[in-house]
Every structure is written in C-alpha cells, then in structure tokens.
C-alpha cells in the first residue's frame, strides 16, 4: 500500500452538551463545582485511507461515523488526535491555510433536500466553489466546466437555471455530487449519500459515484449504515461501535469471515431474499449512552463472549491475518478463544 491520502491518528471528538454556566453548577458532597456533560462521539479512532480506494465506515445510528466524517473534513475541530492529509497535518490549520486542501477534499451529504440552498439556482450552486477557488477563471471556462460536470452526473446542462425544488431527490443528489466534483477533488467524504433516496435511485447514484471514481481516480471515505451498499462499493470496511473501531478489513474478508462479535451480529441482521431461515444474533440489552461510556471494551455489556478482562481493559486494534491485513479490536479474538 502506498502512502495514505488521509490518515486519522487516535482521534477523539467530544461534544459539550451541558449548556450554560448555571446548568454546569452542581452541588456534590456539600461543595459547589462546575460539572460538564460531554457526549463522547468518537473515541480514539485511527484509520488510513489509501489513494484510490473506497473505505466504508459502517455502524448503527449514533455510533459516531458522521462525526468522524465531519471531523476529517474540518467541520468540527477534534478534541484530540490528528488528521493528516498526504502526511501534512490539517486539523490545526486556520481557515486560510486550509484553502488549498479544500480544493482537494470535498463532501457529499445525506439529505439532498437540505444540502442544496433552496434560494440558489443550480448554476450559482455549482459556480460558487469554482469561482471561489479559481479567481482567474473566465466565464466561458466556468460555463464549459459546468456543462461537463452536469453531463457527467447525468443532469441536463440546459437545466442549470432551475432551482432545487424543481428536481427530484435523485436529481438533487446528482447536483450535490456535481458540486463536489466541480473543483476536481481527489478525496471525497460521502456521508450516507444514498440513505435518503429510494432503493431504485440508490443504485443509480452509487454507480454514478463509482464511475466518477474510475474516471477521476477518486478516493472515497464512505459513511453508511447500509451493509448491502457497503458490499457494492467498498474495497475496505471499518466497523464502528460507540465511537470506537471494532474491525477493519477488506470487504470480501469481512463478509465471509467476520471476526469481531459485533460485526458478526451486524452481518447476521442483513435481510436475505433466498428464503432460508435466518440466524439472527440477538444482542442483549441496549446501546450504552455515549455520555457515560462503559469501562474496558465498549461492547462488553452486550457481548456474549465477554469476560473479566473485557470489563477492565479496552482492546487495541490488532492484526489478525497477515494476508489481508484485517484488524480486530477484541480480547477474545486476540486470545484465540473466539
């Protein structure tokens, strides 16, 4: 594997939800003290995204995958940890220093009904990044570029003066993709790009994204909760649970031999059409709150294989097979008892 395009090192992101000063004041054992309540959305995630690949991050709602995506894009500052782009640290840059990177990394959002400004026509939505990043570009070049990109995403360039409400959800998502592609980025974070769309449209959008990847050599960080989508697009998959990575593996390997107990449970939940009886692994209990994380392995409360060590010690991501480079964070797998 060549040098990674994006490297995330031990990333933490906490959100302070305790509100104002007065709400922070608490009386504990007779003393007044300031107490902050934090949602621990991402807890020590390390990842590498190799150039040209599609790395999918999967997990259930609230596991921190969208927060991870937004932190990588610099929309949220990380609480601690580093984000590196081609070896350069980008999470500490000022807005101005960040500008060159903004041209190289873009984002596609989940809800095409919210991600396009309703008051801006397609033309001005697509023109804005282009004119902002290439100050010297001529109007003719802008027009040509718009036509080219709209053609590529399958939106008729003659519709450039229409407004978002005149388009369907799928068409809007195409326009949102066009906005990301128009400044020719090399790395795109896609935050659940198809989960707000009809199933019939999902395939079209996914194929569009994969075609764009082939043509432009794009790298994707693909956030989703949909495991069938992952199988279709991803080259590697990272499974997240409560803000931590539990397994990182090549797609085929993950689907054929899931190692982490959580991954096994997750994969057993995919609906099947072949009519065979399904063996759902039913996890006991509820997801713990990310405000008060469990000690040790975050999954230990719901894991049928958990023992004393899992409650005390949080597991590290360890390589389990040399051939595929699969990484699993589980004491059971490391000890060989699973």
């Amino acid at each position: 594997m060549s040098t990674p395009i994006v490297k995330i090192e031990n990333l933490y992101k906490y959100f302070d939800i305790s509100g104002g000063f007065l709400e922070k004041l608490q009386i504990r054992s007779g003393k007044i003290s300031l107490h902050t309540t934090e949602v621990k959305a991402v807890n020590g995630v390390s990842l590498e995204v190799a150039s040209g690949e599609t790395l999918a991050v999967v997990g259930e709602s609230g596991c921190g995958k969208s927060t991870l995506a937004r932190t990588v894009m610099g929309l949220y500052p990380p609480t601690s940890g580093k984000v590196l782009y081609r070896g350069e640290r980008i999470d500490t840059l000022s807005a101005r220093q960040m500008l060159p990177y903004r041209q190289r990394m873009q984002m596609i959002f989940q809800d095409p009904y919210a991600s396009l400004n309703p008051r801006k026509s397609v033309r001005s939505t697509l023109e804005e990044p282009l004119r902002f990043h290439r100050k010297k570009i001529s109007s003719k070049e802008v027009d040509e570029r718009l036509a080219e990109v709209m053609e590529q995403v399958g939106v008729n360039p003659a519709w450039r003066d229409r407004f978002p409400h005149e388009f369907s959800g799928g068409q809007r998502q195409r326009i949102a993709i066009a906005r990301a592609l128009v400044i020719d980025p090399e790395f795109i974070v896609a935050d659940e790009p198809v989960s707000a769309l009809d199933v019939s449209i999902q395939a079209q959008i996914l194929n569009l994204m994969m075609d764009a990847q082939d043509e432009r050599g794009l790298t994707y960080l693909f956030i989703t909760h949909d495991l069938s989508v992952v199988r279709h697009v991803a080259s590697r998959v990272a499974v997240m649970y409560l803000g931590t990575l539990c397994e990182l593996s090549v797609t085929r390997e993950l689907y054929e031999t899931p190692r982490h107990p959580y991954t096994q449970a997750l994969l057993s939940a995919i609906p099947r059409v072949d009519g065979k009886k399904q063996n759902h692994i039913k996890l006991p209990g509820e997801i713990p709150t990310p405000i008060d994380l469990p000690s040790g392995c975050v999954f230990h409360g719901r894991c049928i294989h958990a023992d004393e060590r899992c409650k005390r010690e949080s597991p590290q991501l360890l390589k389990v097979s040399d051939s595929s480079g699969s990484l699993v964070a589980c004491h059971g797998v490391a000890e060989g008892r699973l």
Partner: protein
Amino acid sequence: MQTRRQKIKESYLLYSFKRDKVAMVSFTILAILLLAALFAPLLAPYNPYDTASIDIMDSEIPPSWTEEGDSRFFLGTDIQGRDLVSTMLYGLRISVMIGIGAVILQALIGIAVGLVSGYFGGRIDAVLMRIADVQLSFSTLMVAIIVSAIVQIAFGVGRYEQLAVPILIVIIGIAEWPQYARTVRASVLGEKNKEYVEAARVIGLDSRRIMFSHILPNTLSPVLVISTVQVANAVMSEAALSFLGLGMPVTKPSIGSLIDAGFEYIFSGAWWITFFPAVLLIVFILVINLLGDWLRDVLNPKLYKG
C-alpha cells in the same frame, strides 16, 4: 425557459392575492394613500408650508358641506388657517417617510445583529441578545422622550425643527431593532445546521459570505412579514410622539402633530382638525396590518391552502 413575467403571473403569491378580497381592498387603499403622499405637492390644492398663502382669517373653518363651511376648503381649515386636505397630504408624506426610514434603520441593525448572534452563537450571542433585551425593556416612548428632550435642549427648538425628521427616524429605528434581531436570529438558528451551510463551509467560504449569501436569503420571509407590521408601528410611534409634542413641529406637521394640534380645540367645537387626520391614521395603520396578516399567512407553508 420561463420569463420573469410568467413567473410572477404563475406565482402562489399573486394567486392567493386575487382570491383574498381583504388583501385586495387593503392593497388598493394603501397604494392610493402612498401615491397621494408621494405626489402631495401636485395633488394638494394649497401648500401648507408656504406661509404667504395662509390667511389667519381662514382659521377654524368647518368642512365645506357644513353650514358655516367654505367651498374653498373641503375638509375645513386648522387653527392657523391651513387647508386641512393639503396639510393631511403633506403630513402623511412625512409620517410615511419617517415610518419607512425608521424601518430601514431597524432592519439594517436588527438583521446584522441577528445574523451574527445566531450564526456564531455562544458568548457573542449571549451578549448581543442581552443588549436586545435591555433595549426592549425600555419602552420606545421613554427612549424617544429622553432623546428628543436632550436634542431639543442641545440644538435649540429652532434647529430641532429642521432636524426633526432624521432624529425621529433614528429614535424609532433604534428603539425597535430587537424585533428584527430576534426574528432573524431565530431563523438563522434553524438554518445554520442545515447541510447546505456545511457544504458552503466545506467549499471553504468565509463566515461573512456564508451568513450573507447563503443564510440570509433563507431567513427573509419572516423579515418581510414583520417589516409591514413594523412600518405601521413606526408610523404609530411617530404619531404618539408628535401627539406628546416631541415629534414633528406644528410648522411641518405629520399626521400625529395634526391630531395633537387639533386636540386643543376639540372642545371649542373644531372637531374636524383632529377627526380627519385621526381617521386617516387609523385607515393607514389598519390596511398595513391587514396586508401584513395576509402576507404572513401566504408565506407560512403550514397554512398553505393550495
């Protein structure tokens, strides 16, 4: 491709306007009043500011259809012998000017404060909104009374008469900006977490550009609605101030100062000097408020009647 004209023709705004009789009547009356105010120098039979044309012997003539009426003065004359129709037209002009000027000032301050406050949040928001609260806790009248009293002393009454219009605009403008700030802030809070704002940040646009070119256009419909009500409020505030003798001087009367001027003579039988300007004021405020109500209903998607 639709032309602009077609778009206006097919818009929901026009569609609902055509089906709402109250809105149509209000709009017609408002348009007539505004045009009359705008073209007062052409429409008015006399120029009430021209002291040479005023004859003190004509004072307190009742409307022309009454027994003692004079056919020259349709609605009669005021205490100084000015034709009431002409004075009212010129007065409406001043009232509208102050109303609109004050609303523009309110909107400029309020929108800027509301945008900054809602977008940045945190401490900036807390400080700005507390300032707005403090401003709101003073009544408009109190601020106006203090400021105009100080100005009248500082510049002298003679000079005050020339400065009255800009001073009233500033007083009413400053007293009411929190209305805008709060409205804009509330919509900014709703808009700023939408994904199109994040998309703009991912592009790398600076906060100012995101605020003004992305968020602001999406917060304008409530601003439009309160603007109508605020114009009416500003005209009313001006009338109240003038009635209290703190607004426009008698030599350059607004509707409010006309009502005030006539009020002293109402018990001596000269009811018309107060009555007609008061009716004009009520009609003007009423039609603006009715139009504002209609606009609020039309622009509220939850009340979409289709």
